[in-house]
């Protein structure tokens, strides 16, 4: 009875690198990203009966990751200023390493972090992971039109922050 379950694990192992990248784009920190990946894998294996065979397992896991991330953001918001406190402790305990990690953050990562969450997720799926609009919209449970408008807004902000670019005005002569 476990034959299908048996090749689920190798499939998941193969998805891990991309799942880590997606989680990093969402959370902005490697440790948080790997915690999210771990929660995602546990949730996926424990609810494998909800997976539709023949559909894409990567998309299913990305969807679980996105939902868990949204849940954790809500919990964090409800909890109030814990984040800042955690950060303050991390800096005081391990100031040097934290500072170093912050320096290694690229402009892109910093730019991504300032985007609203829904735009960040859209950018992560389409621009970073290279998924089609259809796959990305299905992972985010939104119509394609919603996805493309989130992408457009996220892009504008990122381009301005990262490239210092001005917004494109169609049809205007340069």
């Amino acid at each position, binding site marked *: 009875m476990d034959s299908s379950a048996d090749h689920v694990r190798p499939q998941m192992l193969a998805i891990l690198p991309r799942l*880590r990248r997606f989680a990093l784009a969402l959370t902005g920190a490697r440790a948080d990203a790997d915690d999210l990946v771990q929660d995602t894998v546990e949730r996926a*294996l*424990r609810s494998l009966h909800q997976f539709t065979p023949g559909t894409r397992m990567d998309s299913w896991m990305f969807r679980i990751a996105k939902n868990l991330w949204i849940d954790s953001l809500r919990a964090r918001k409800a909890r109030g200023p814990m984040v800042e406190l955690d950060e303050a402790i991390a800096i005081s305990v391990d100031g040097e390493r934290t500072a170093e990690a912050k320096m290694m953050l690229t402009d892109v990562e910093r730019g991504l972090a300032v985007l609203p969450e829904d735009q960040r997720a859209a950018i992560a799926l389409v*621009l970073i992971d290279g998924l089609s609009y259809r796959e990305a919209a299905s992972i985010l449970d939104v119509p394609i039109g919603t996805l493309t408008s989130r992408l*457009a807004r996220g892009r504008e902000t990122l*381009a301005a922050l990262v*490239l210092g670019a001005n917004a*494109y005005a169609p049809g*205007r002569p340069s």
Partner: protein
Amino acid sequence: MMVSKEMVMAFVDGELSSADALRVEREIATNPALARYVDEQRALKRHLETAFSPIVTAPVPHRLEATVMDTPIISNETAQAPHASVRPLPFWRIGFPIGALAAGIAIGVLAMNSMIGANLIANRNGGFVAAGGLAQALSTQLASEQASPASPTRIGVSFVNKGGEFCRSFTSDTGRNAAVAGIACRTAQDWRIEALAAMPAQDSRNFQPAAATMPDSVRTALNGIIAGAALDAQAEREARDRDWRAR
């Protein structure tokens, strides 16, 4: 012709039909502002890909691979296992304590689900405690006395653990000829579940003595926590009469 921003974006993302892509390319050739915009958007995409590429090629942490290999699978087959007569609430919906597994407590996932379904255990403060008929049997039933045939729970052995708490092994009928074996230890308020495992399907009217049919994981847990020998009939009765308060 004017190309909309959405169309340029779809062009950069490779989402246009070849006919539409061709239209955009023609427009780019004659519109420097558009050409610059497309270049910027491509540069942004490259920036993003580059910034996030190290984590894709980096080795995956061992703990994540271990999670993939070791997390119990709930598949269609297991979710419809015969002893899940009442479809149990998935344990993550009641706050499944991952820590319980990490702490080395032997709790079988299927056993747990069927016990939750039969309302014989409940989640409390991140751990599991006996509930309903199981809690009652643990508190009142003596291993040395013949249990009422109506009781779905049989007590195996009673003993004291290394922390001085009274503990009891048990088997419980969870319906549909399926049974679960486990160990519970008496705290100030509850019977804390220490171990739980599914027993092979059998005729529930035909229980063997609990110790003899104890699954390996439960037996191992018992051997790990027991201090001294099991209580004899008299010591067990005295412990019950003092409401299992730790000595």
